[in-house]
């Protein structure tokens, strides 16, 4: 076992276990903080997949942006000081049904992943990806890039419009 393998299994276990804590925890603040470490684990997996720009983007946008938004949402919609931080779940029967359903989904996905003969390219040597991504975004994907910028602007205006006090 070399170092890459050990690092992979460590971060894979971190991602899966804390992802499970996100879903199964009764306290919604525990879920939010577990989500932080899940995002960190995914960013580390990106690094192991030699996607340096994506790892930084993951940390900056998911952890610095989306997670902060989610924690704000938790604090504004639950009474932190009271006992009401719990997030309710459905009844026992629904939980059992949902568990069976998601286990089926996981089993089907993993079965397909293992049995399919994937096309494997020759592994290219590791290069830094930021300048390649910039070139692609401003040449081949220029329209999608501009559309994404318009979408973000509209989302900001719409969010401010929806959330304002009447």
């Amino acid at each position, binding site marked *: 076992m070399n170092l890459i393998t050990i690092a992979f299994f460590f971060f894979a276990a971190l991602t899966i276990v804390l*992802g499970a804590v996100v*879903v199964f925890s009764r306290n919604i603040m525990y879920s939010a903080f577990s989500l932080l470490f899940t995002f960190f684990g*995914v960013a580390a997996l990106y690094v192991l997949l030699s996607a340096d720009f994506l790892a930084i983007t993951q940390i900056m946008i998911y952890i610095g942006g989306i997670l902060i938004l*989610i924690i704000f949402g938790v604090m504004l919609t639950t009474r932190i000081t009271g006992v009401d931080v719990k997030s309710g779940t459905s009844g026992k029967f629904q939980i059992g049904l949902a568990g069976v359903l998601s286990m089926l989904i996981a089993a089907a996905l993993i079965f397909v992943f*293992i049995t399919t003969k994937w096309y*494997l390219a020759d592994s290219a040597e590791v290069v830094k990806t930021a300048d390649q*991504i910039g070139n692609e975004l401003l040449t081949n994907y220029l329209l999608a890039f501009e559309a994404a910028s318009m979408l973000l602007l509209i989302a900001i205006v719409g969010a401010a419009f929806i959330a304002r006090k009447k």
Partner: protein
Amino acid sequence: MEIGLIHYLIISGILFSLGIFGIITRKHAVMVLMGLELVLNAANINFIAFAKFGGMNIEGHIAAIFVIILAAAEAAVALAIVLNIYQNFKHVNVDEVDKLKG
């Protein structure tokens, strides 16, 4: 033991089904949103894994970046809607929010 494509795909499969389980079972709207983020992250892991092992190269990274952009926009709008629901109903349980105008 060499870490290959399959390992990353299995991680993303497990993460995806965890997210689906969270979306189905939790009542709190913010928890549903967290399950959604897990699902999107699972999809992103697949994109990057195929970018490295399947010869997708930089196109996989571009797709993952657009997924992250859409996730950011979706989180902002969804949180605004959740705050609005809280103002009207004093709770955010998604299965009890059933009035269009009230």
